[in-house]
């Protein structure tokens, strides 16, 4: 069973396959949860290659939208995409940090293979990005919004035509990104298909509610009217599974319960801000007459702690940080109103999926799998696990039932039974009855690590430390 090959028919990478964790058919045990409507998998009405709209969100957790069951938020536009397409409920970031995760989205390779092991690094010059790759195949590749590989909002990105944006955080930028994408979609007259990346920043603004908490999250609730309507604390807010020391150090202790709940209130309003800008772009696709010719993908680089395990931000392998939306839609081609809860998917898969629909072979070393057979509900073998990188020295491996985490510089490993304990409250790695499971996962991870082809980390580009004002904190990623 291949684990990480593309759908191009090339030989599978050497990879662990001693145990078969997953079903081998798209409609296997546990398959698709919800029904689906009209026919799909049909060619575009025009018979041409489809356009692509890639909506990249920043810090959007998989379960932070109403269409995925969150009662604390209202996201009618993202929900519209959920209804129109296939949403993957086991979707994982390759590295829950902005730049590394984005490097995978746009190349199909793990961050150690792109050279982007931390923020503000360029993709290694030997690795083509999606703009390059589709551009060579005749696509017009256009980018609008946050890039961060490096530079937040560069005016030039190799492989893409850039619609300049930026200036402020998500609250001031995203409406511009959405409006420029709307203008692009409606002004466009070219005959060639397009790849448009709309990279929206919300709800990343929430970072500052932790960093500047004294001003933004005062001790007393700043809006008394909200006292009875703040979201509840998550059930694992106080959970303290044994963890590598670096994860324990990230426990955030500046908030009272009420402050945590206000933090959540703000986060969900920022998700709603994102939703409005997503809606503006989706409306533009519809109004431009290209809805049935455009494959739309919405995903994110990573999630946010949201008080789970008393965390803010991202960086760690818990679900709130590493699970991200992956919603794929194209009316007539892709199953609608379908929620896939059984297939483990990854940010790696975006590149291969786009290439598959474009009729282009993916880059030779792309590791992702095309989601197309799953989107079209065709039988296919699927991978046994997904992996994620953490803090350069750590890796997470997720199999259908378990999550296993290991750091090279810490003896504490983590094993969670994700079916019995989805909130990750009990670390089972040293429980005798799970010794076999731990051993299996260690071997899987060893083999995965052996299959990687790291490149030298690319140079970090940013503010030279000597120029950073005294006392100023590094900006969040």
């Amino acid at each position, binding site marked *: 069973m291949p684990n990480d090959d593309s759908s191009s028919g090339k030989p599978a990478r050497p990879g662990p396959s001693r145990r078969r964790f997953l079903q081998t058919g798209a409609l296997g045990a546990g398959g698709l949860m919800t029904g689906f409507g009209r026919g799909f998998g049909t060619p575009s009405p025009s018979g041409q290659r489809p356009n692509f709209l890639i909506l990249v969100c920043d810090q959007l957790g998989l379960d932070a939208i109403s269409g995925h069951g969150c009662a604390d938020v209202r996201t009618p536009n993202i929900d519209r995409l959920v209804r129109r397409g296939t949403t993957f409920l086991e979707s994982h970031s390759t590295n829950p940090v902005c730049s590394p995760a984005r490097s995978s989205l746009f190349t199909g390779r793990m961050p150690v293979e792109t050279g982007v092991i931390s923020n503000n690094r360029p993709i290694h010059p030997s690795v083509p990005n999606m703009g390059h790759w589709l551009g060579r195949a005749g696509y017009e590749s256009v980018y609008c919004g946050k890039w961060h590989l490096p530079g937040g909002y560069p005016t030039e990105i190799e492989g893409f035509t850039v619609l300049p*944006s930026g200036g402020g*955080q998500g609250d001031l930028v995203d409406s511009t990104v959405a409006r420029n994408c709307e203008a692009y979609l409606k002004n466009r007259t070219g005959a060639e298909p397009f790849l448009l990346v709309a990279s929206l920043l919300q709800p990343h603004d929430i970072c500052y509610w932790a960093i500047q908490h004294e001003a933004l999250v005062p001790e007393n609730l700043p809006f008394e009217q909200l006292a009875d309507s703040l979201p509840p604390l998550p059930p694992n807010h106080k959970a303290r599974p044994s963890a590598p020391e670096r994860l324990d150090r990230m426990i955030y202790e500046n908030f009272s319960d009420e402050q945590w709940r206000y933090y959540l209130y703000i986060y969900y309003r920022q998700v709603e801000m994102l939703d409005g800008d997503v809606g503006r772009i989706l409306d533009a696709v519809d109004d431009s007459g290209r809805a049935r010719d455009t494959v739309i993908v919405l995903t994110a680089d990573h999630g946010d702690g949201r008080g789970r395990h008393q965390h803010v931000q991202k960086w760690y392998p818990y679900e709130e940080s590493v699970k991200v939306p992956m919603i794929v839609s194209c009316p007539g081609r892709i199953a609608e109103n379908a929620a896939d809860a059984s297939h483990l998917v990854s940010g790696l898969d975006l590149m291969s999926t786009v290439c598959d629909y474009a009729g282009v072979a993916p880059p030779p070393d792309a590791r992702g799998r095309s989601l197309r057979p799953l989107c079209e509900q065709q039988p296919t073998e699927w991978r046994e696990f997904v992996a994620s990188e953490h803090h350069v020295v750590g890796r997470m491996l997720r199999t259908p039932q378990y999550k296993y985490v290991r750091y090279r510089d810490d003896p504490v490993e983590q094993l969670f039974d994700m079916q019995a304990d989805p909130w990750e409250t009990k670390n089972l790695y040293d429980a005798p009855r799970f010794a076999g499971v731990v051993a299996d996962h260690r071997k899987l991870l060893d083999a995965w690590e052996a299959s990687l082809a790291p490149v030298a980390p690319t140079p970090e580009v940013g503010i030279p430390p000597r120029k950073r004002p005294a006392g100023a904190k590094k900006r969040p990623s």
Partner: protein
Amino acid sequence: MPTSTIPAGDEFTLDIVAPHLEGFEPPVEPWDPQADGRLTYGIYTLAMRGARLGTLGMSRRSLGDGTVSLTVDYDKAVPGNHRQKMAAEIVCRTDAISTPLRWQFTSKTVAPGGKTIAGTRWTKSGRVVDGGLEMTDARSTRRVALPEAHTVNWALFDAVMRLPRRPFDPIHFALVDHFDQVKPAHRLSYRKTVDVVFPSPASPKTETGPASKAPRARPLRLHGYDQLGHGMVPWVWWVDDRGRLLFAVSGLEAYLYERAEG
């Protein structure tokens, strides 16, 4: 009513903008929020140390039939010395939330030389018809349902200046954000009245020593309003005793008064 004057840095939302208001001199000129005029604000991001990013001009002109024309001139810096520009006209009622009747805007990104970046210019108009919002541009007409009580975010810059400067029953409405996204369940309410003083400026040094006369900070009575609702981080609007809108703060986004004309 406030009982004492406090540093602006002690008041929620003013605390985070206070560093950008060193030397701020409260306007003393008369101001009639029912009359024609123009106010200019600096556009700020408040992340980390914050920065001024551009200018927002809001003009009001009576049309003589119980409606007014509001014009919005938005000009914000974009990396690479580009600029994001948006110009709009909104015709609205003079009611509590400046209910819009119709509007038109043009948005574009311009390069350092002033040339519009290809593909970014877009013009769209909207009007309220039969309980719905009809939006039209060169490619399409789109209709969406709209509650009777509604306004656009930019019209609130006008509306808050005519709100009572005392407690009142909250006003409920739907927000049409950036002219096309309808966000429900908004509520505008009185927050508080507070007397504040902004930080005095540090004396600027000259080649011959400290400047002799730096502007003095003066106490200012402010009336605050809260806006809560879906699809946005809460806003706090601050007007002076004449109703003039001085500061609008929403999380990391702020508009700070700079000058008035007319």
